[in-house]
């Protein structure tokens, strides 16, 4: 369970990004966080990976306050959370296999585990043929699928997707969405930040709407992105 309790964050000392956010996300939920640009959607996700600190408030994952853990424990936190970004954030000097394998190496997986699991996950996302390709050799859709494969490989309990379809065409966007939904069906909590109304309305799950750093609407079931 993820609990964000009364969180406010500022940028550059005085620019408020989030304002008294209270949000609870249960295990296995698929939550779309929507809103206009500058609403604070991505900032919310950055709290969960501890990229930024709140000025006020707490962020708890399974009862553990993320900002009570030491700097040394932060990598351990990040290994439990899969992240997918709009700009893919792939390691350009590594091929598809190595990009996914890196996520396993950091958790100390053996060579046998890596050799066994990585091709399977690449197959799930439809990249079996591209196992030795480098990111610059992949299309936008393929890059995002590779990023999802990396996010999935160590079976995280939470996947954070920050505008995962932002740089993709319609077909690829729906492919990515289908993958995320499939992952969610297997029990992973998926939190997707997006401003793509059609995608959100296709999912038909919980929709949290943000505006100017606040949550203005929280539709727990059959949510729609209402402008």
């Amino acid at each position, binding site marked *: 369970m993820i609990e964000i309790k009364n969180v406010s964050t500022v940028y550059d000392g005085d620019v408020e990004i989030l304002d008294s956010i209270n949000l609870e996300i249960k295990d296995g939920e698929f939550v779309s966080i929507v809103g206009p640009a500058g609403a604070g959607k991505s900032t919310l996700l950055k709290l969960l990976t501890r990229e930024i600190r709140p000025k006020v408030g707490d962020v708890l994952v399974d009862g553990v306050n993320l900002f009570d853990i030491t700097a040394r424990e932060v*990598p351990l936190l990040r290994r439990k959370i899969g992240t997918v970004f709009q700009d893919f954030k*792939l390691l350009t000097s590594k091929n598809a296999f190595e990009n996914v394998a890196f996520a396993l190496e950091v958790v100390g997986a053996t060579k046998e585990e890596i050799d066994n699991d990585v091709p399977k996950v690449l197959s799930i996302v439809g990249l079996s043929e591209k196992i030795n390709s480098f990111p610059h050799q992949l299309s936008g859709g393929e890059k995002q699928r590779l990023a999802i494969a990396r996010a999935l490989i160590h079976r995280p309990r939470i996947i954070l997707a920050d505008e995962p379809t932002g740089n993709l065409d319609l077909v690829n966007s729906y492919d990515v969405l289908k993958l995320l939904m499939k992952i969610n069906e297997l029990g992973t909590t998926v939190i997707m930040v997006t401003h793509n109304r059609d995608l959100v309305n296709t999912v038909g799950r919980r929709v949290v709407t943000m505006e100017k750093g606040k949550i203005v609407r929280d539709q727990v079931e059959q949510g729609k992105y209402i402008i």
Partner: protein
Amino acid sequence: MWRQTIRRIFNTGWTNFKRNSYVTIGTTGVMTLVLLLFLGLLALNFISDTIIQSLNEKVDITVYFKTTAAEEEMISVQDDLKNFSAVKSVEYISRDQALEDFKVRHAGNALINESLAELEGNPLQASLNVKANNTSEYAAIANSLEGNKFRSSIDKINFYENEQVIGRIEKISNGLRNWGLVATLMLSVIAVLVTFNTIRLTIYNQKQEIEIMRLVGGSNHHISMPYLVEGALYGLFAGFLALIIFYPAVYSVSPKVARLMPGVDTFSYFKANAWQFIIIIFGAGTILGMVSSLVAIRRFLKI
């Protein structure tokens, strides 16, 4: 598990080294130049040390005895000098030996030979040729001779005539040594800074990759160790290149240096100490590469 981790770190470092060919060539090239500069400084230091040594060897004190001096007295003075800590060596040249040496030196000079034949007896004096451990100690040796119990048998101590020359030689030697050290230190610092900045730029270009690895959950050592391996590889390859350029260069330049400065055999020196130089250059390159990588990457690993 740690063996697996180490293997992974080396594999990743080696893969990065191989794949980024332009960066590898550039960085290795700069480090090769730095190591060549370092070897050049070693060569210059060797040459200047050899010059200093040969200058010092030309300096000595000759003690001329009166023709009436008894051999036992001269031997006693020699023994006293041998026991003096500042003295490196004392060579006794008897009057007969002095005459023989004179005849050999002037064998082709008919006039001198005829003049010698005219003379009755041996006009030459017995002498002691004294070399000190250090040019600065000749004054002390001369003073000790002044106080010797057989000073009355000594005709002349030629230190006083050569005192100025000895002083000048000592100044030149010290100057060469000191300035050589300063130049070596300054150039070494510059070389280290150039290498450090080159590797820092290389890692700066990897800034985004490092950030991504942190976001995916890579720990500091997991991210930084392959870069240390990469830095070490730059150093090792640079060391190899520097040595295969330097040795043939010294081999071809050494005879020319020997013509200008007789007695200075640069190639023999580097050949005789080849293993030491190989270890020093590979070691210096590896350490320089690793330390530069470590310092450069630290600023990207703040969590």
